[in-house]
C-alpha cells in the first residue's frame, strides 16, 4: 500500500484492530436509552409549563450523546471526528441563535 | 432638531466611499509600482521574504478601526431612521401586483401619495399578495412590503415637490411599472385634499381587499397573461413623473 501515506490520524487505514467492543456494554446503553424514553414520556404527563420543552430537549440530548458515543463509537474514535462533529454542531447552533435574534426582537 | 435622514445616508455613503477610494488607490498604486520596479527586466533575482508579523498586525488593526468607524456611523444613522418621531402622521401603504394604495387616518384612499410639506410621515407598509418594496429614492430609504406583516419607516418631507415611489422587490410581470407619484404640497392644501371626497372617487380608487388572498385566486388570475399595456393604464405613465425631482444638487453629497 504505497499510496497510503497518511501523515496524520496515525494508523494504516485499517481500523479493524482499533477497538473491540463487547455485546454487554451496548446492551447496557440500550437499556439506558429505553429508561430515558420512559422518563421523558412520564415527565410529559406532568404539567411543567415552559420547562417542558427544556426537559424534553435535555433528555433527547443525553440520549443522542449515548447513541453517538457508544453506538456510533465516537468515544473510542480518533479525535478528528470529535472535532468535526463539534464544528457541525456549532454551525447549527450559531445559525439557530442568529435566526432567533430576528424572531425574538421583532415588534 | 434631528439630523436629516437623507443627509445622514449620503454622509455615511461618502464616508465609507472615501475610505474605500483611498484604500483602493493605495493598493492599486503600490501594486503597479511594485510590478514596475521589480519587473524581471529590472530585477532579475528575487529576494525571498517570508512575511512580517508587525506588518500583519498593522494591516489587521487599522482595518478593524476603519470598519468600526464605518459601523458606528451607519448605526447612528440607522437609529435615527428607526426612531419614529411621536408626531409623525401615519399613512398606510399597501402593495399589490402592481400598484400602490395609500390610506390616510381618515380612511381616505388614493393611488397618488399626497403629503404635507415639512412634516414627519410614518408609513405602515403592507402587501396583499407577494413581496414588494416601498422605495422612495429621493428619501434614501425603502422597506419591503411582506404579506402577513406590517413594516414601517418614516421620512421628513421638505418644500412642495414631486417625487416618485418605486417598487424595489421583484414582484412579477409589471414590477418595473409599479410606480406611484409622490406629491408634497403645502399643509393647508393637503388638509383640504384629504377632507374632500368627490362623489365619484370610489371609481378611480380601486378598493383594496384586505383579507388575505388565497393561493388559487392568483394562479388562475394568470400572473403571466397580462400584457404590459393593459397594466400601464391605471398606473402612472413613466414620462409624467420626474424622478429625483429633488434638484440634482441635493442628490450629490453635501
Amino acid at each position, binding site marked *: 500500500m504505497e499510496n497510503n501515506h497518511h501523515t496524520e490520524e496515525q494508523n494504516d487505514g485499517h481500523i479493524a484492530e482499533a477497538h473491540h467492543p463487547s455485546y454487554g456494554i451496548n446492551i447496557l446503553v440500550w437499556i439506558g436509552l429505553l429508561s430515558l424514553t420512559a422518563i421523558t414520556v412520564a415527565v410529559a404527563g406532568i404539567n411543567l409549563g415552559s420547562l417542558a420543552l427544556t426537559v424534553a430537549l435535555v433528555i433527547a440530548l443525553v440520549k443522542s450523546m449515548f447513541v453517538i458515543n457508544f453506538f456510533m463509537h465516537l468515544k473510542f474514535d480518533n479525535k478528528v471526528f470529535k472535532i468535526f462533529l463539534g464544528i457541525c454542531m456549532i454551525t447549527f447552533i450559531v445559525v439557530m441563535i442568529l435566526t432567533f435574534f430576528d424572531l425574538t426582537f421583532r415588534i | 432638531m434631528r439630523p436629516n435622514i437623507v443627509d445622514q445616508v449620503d454622509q455615511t455613503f461618502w464616508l465609507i466611499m472615501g475610505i474605500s477610494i483611498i484604500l483602493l488607490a493605495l493598493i492599486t498604486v503600490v501594486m503597479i509600482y511594485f510590478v514596475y520596479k521589480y519587473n524581471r527586466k529590472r530585477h532579475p533575482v528575487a529576494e525571498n521574504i517570508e512575511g512580517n508579523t508587525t506588518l500583519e498586525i498593522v494591516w489587521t488593526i487599522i482595518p478593524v478601526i476603519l470598519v468600526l468607524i464605518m459601523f458606528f456611523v451607519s448605526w447612528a444613522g440607522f437609529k435615527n431612521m428607526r426612531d419614529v418621531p411621536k408626531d409623525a402622521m401615519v399613512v398606510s401603504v399597501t402593495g399589490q401586483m402592481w400598484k400602490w394604495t395609500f390610506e390616510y387616518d381618515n380612511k381616505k384612499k388614493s393611488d397618488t401619495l399626497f403629503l404635507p410639506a415639512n412634516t414627519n410621515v410614518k408609513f405602515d407598509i403592507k402587501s396583499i399578495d407577494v413581496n414588494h418594496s416601498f422605495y422612495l429614492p429621493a428619501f434614501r430609504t425603502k422597506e419591503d412590503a411582506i404579506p402577513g406583516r406590517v413594516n414601517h419607516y418614516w421620512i421628513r418631507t421638505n418644500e412642495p415637490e414631486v417625487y416618485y415611489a418605486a417598487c424595489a422587490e421583484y414582484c412579477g*410581470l409589471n414590477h418595473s411599472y409599479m410606480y406611484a407619484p409622490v406629491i408634497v404640497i403645502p399643509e393647508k392644501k393637503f388638509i383640504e385634499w384629504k377632507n374632500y371626497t368627490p362623489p365619484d372617487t370610489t371609481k378611480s380608487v380601486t378598493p383594496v381587499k384586505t383579507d388575505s388572498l388565497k393561493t388559487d385566486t392568483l394562479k388562475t388570475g394568470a400572473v403571466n397573461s397580462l400584457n404590459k399595456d393593459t397594466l400601464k393604464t391605471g398606473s402612472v405613465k413613466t414620462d409624467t413623473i420626474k424622478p429625483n425631482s429633488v434638484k440634482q444638487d441635493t442628490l450629490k453629497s453635501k
Partner: protein
Amino acid sequence: MANGTIAAVPQTAEVNFYNVRTKHKGILSWLLTIDHKRIGIMYLFAVVFFFLVAMTIGVFMRLEMLTPGETFMKPQTYNSLFTLHGVIMIFLFIIPAVPAVFGNFFLPIQLGAQDVQFPKLNLLSWYLYVIGAVLALTSLFSGGGIMDTGWTFYVPYSIRTTTNVSLSVFAAFVLGFATILTGLNFITTIHRLRCPGMTWFRMPLFAWALYATSWIQVLATPVIGITLILIILERAFGIGIFDPALGGDPLLYQHMFWIYSHPAVYIMILPAMGVVSEIIPTFSKKTIFGYVPIAISSLAIALVGYLVWGHHMFSSGISDTSRVIFSLLTFFVALPSGIKIFNWVATLYKGSIEVTAPMLYVLLFIFIFSIGGLTGLVLGALNTDLHLTDTYFVVAHFHYVMFGGMGIIFFAALHYWFPKMFGKMYNEKVAKTAAVWIGIGFNMLYFPMFIMGYLGMPRRYYDYLPEFQKYHVFATVGSWVLVSGIIIMYINLAIALKRGKKAPDNPWGGTTLEWKTSSPPIMENFKEIPTVTTGPYDHSITESQEVKK
C-alpha cells in the same frame, strides 16, 4: 502491487492520461472514467458551455436595457432571462467552476496523490451535475414556461407564479448535491492523501482554499436543499410552511435561503483566492508573503461567512437588533479578505515579476475585486443599505466580486494551467490583449451601474425612467467590448488546443508539485510518489531547468 505498477509506467513523455490505454475505449473511456484529471476536463467543458450560455443571455439583457420601454423583448421574457442568467451563472457556472474543474484536476497532484479519496463518488458528482443541468434545460421547455422568480426564488411569488419553478428548483437541488459530494471528497482527500512530508502548513494555498470551501459546501448546501424541496412541496401539495396565506412567514424563507447563499458567495470566491495565491509567487519568483495568515484567513472567511447572511434582509423587516448584529459581523468578514489582498501585494515586493497573461488577470483581479469588496461595505452598512438594496448598486457589487473575482480568476487559472492540462502553449500576446479588452469592457459595463444604483434605479427592472438611459447605453456598449475580449480569449485558447506548441513540463518555473510531473500528467500523476521537504513556494531550490517561452 501499487509499487510495481507505478514503476512500470515508462519514461517516454508521450504517455499521458489522454492516451494511456484504459479499460474502456473511445467516448466510454471518458464517461466511465474515475480519473480525477479526466473528470476535471469533463467539468471544464460543461462549465464553459454553460458560462457561454449565461453570458449570451446577459448580453441579450443588456441589449434590452439599451432603450427604455420595449427594445426587442416582452417583460415576461426579460424576467425569465435574468432568472435564467442568475441561476445558470450561480449554480452551473460559478459554484462548480474552480473547485470542480481545477480543484479536481490539481488538488490531488498538488498533494502528491494519485487521485481523490473517492474516485467513483467523484464521477457520481459529475453525473449529478449533468443531470441537474439537463433538468434545468428541460424546465425551459416544459410546464408553464421559463421560471421568472429571480435566482432567489422568494416566496410567496415563487409559490404562486405559473411558470415552471418546481423543476428548475429541483435541478438546483440536484446540483447542490453534486457540490456536496465534491466537497466531502476534497476534505477527505486533504486529510488522507497528502504525500510524505506534506504537513498541513506545507500544503499549497490552493489546497487550503479548497479545504475551507469544501467545509462550506458540506455544511451549508443542505440547508438550501431542504428549502428548495419545501418550495416544491408547497407548489405541489399546498403544504403550508412559507405561504403567508396559510400562516407561513416569508421572512423565514429568506433566512433559510441566505443561510446557504451567503456562505455560497464564499464558495465562489475562496477557490479563486487560492488560485491567486498560486499564481503570484510563481511569477514573482519568490515565496508568498505571509503564508500562514493567508491560509488561516481562508478558514476565517469560511467561518465568519456563516454569520452574516442577514445583510441581504436589511430592508425585509427583520428585527432592528438582528440588523445591527448582522451589520457588525458583515464588517468583520471584510478583514480576512483584506489580509489576503495586503499579503498578495506584499509578495510582489522585491520579487522578480513577469507579467504574463495569468499574472495580468491576477493584477486585474486585485483591482476589480477590491472595488467589489469595498462597495460591499456600503451595502453592509445599516442606513446606506436601505437606500441601495435592490438597486443596480447591488448588481454592480456582485458582478464586481463574482465576475471580477471568480470569473476573471477562472480565466487566469485557465491560462496558468493550460499548458499542464493540455500540454500545449497558447499565444501569449493575444492572451494579454484579450485580458486588456476584458479589463476595459468589464469596467465600462459595470461601473455605470454603481452610479445608477445610487441614483435609485431598482434592479430586475424591465423598463426604466428615461433619465437612466445614458448609463444603460454606456453599460451596453461596455458589454460589447467585454464580449470581444472574451471571444478573443477563447479563440486563442481553441487555436492553441489544436495547433499550440508543445508545452514543457514547467513553463513558468512553478514550485508546486503539479510542475514536477509531465505536461499533460501521466495517468498516475507521478512516476513515484514525491516526498516533500519544504514549503510549497520555495524558489531557492528550483532547478533553473524551466523553459522560457
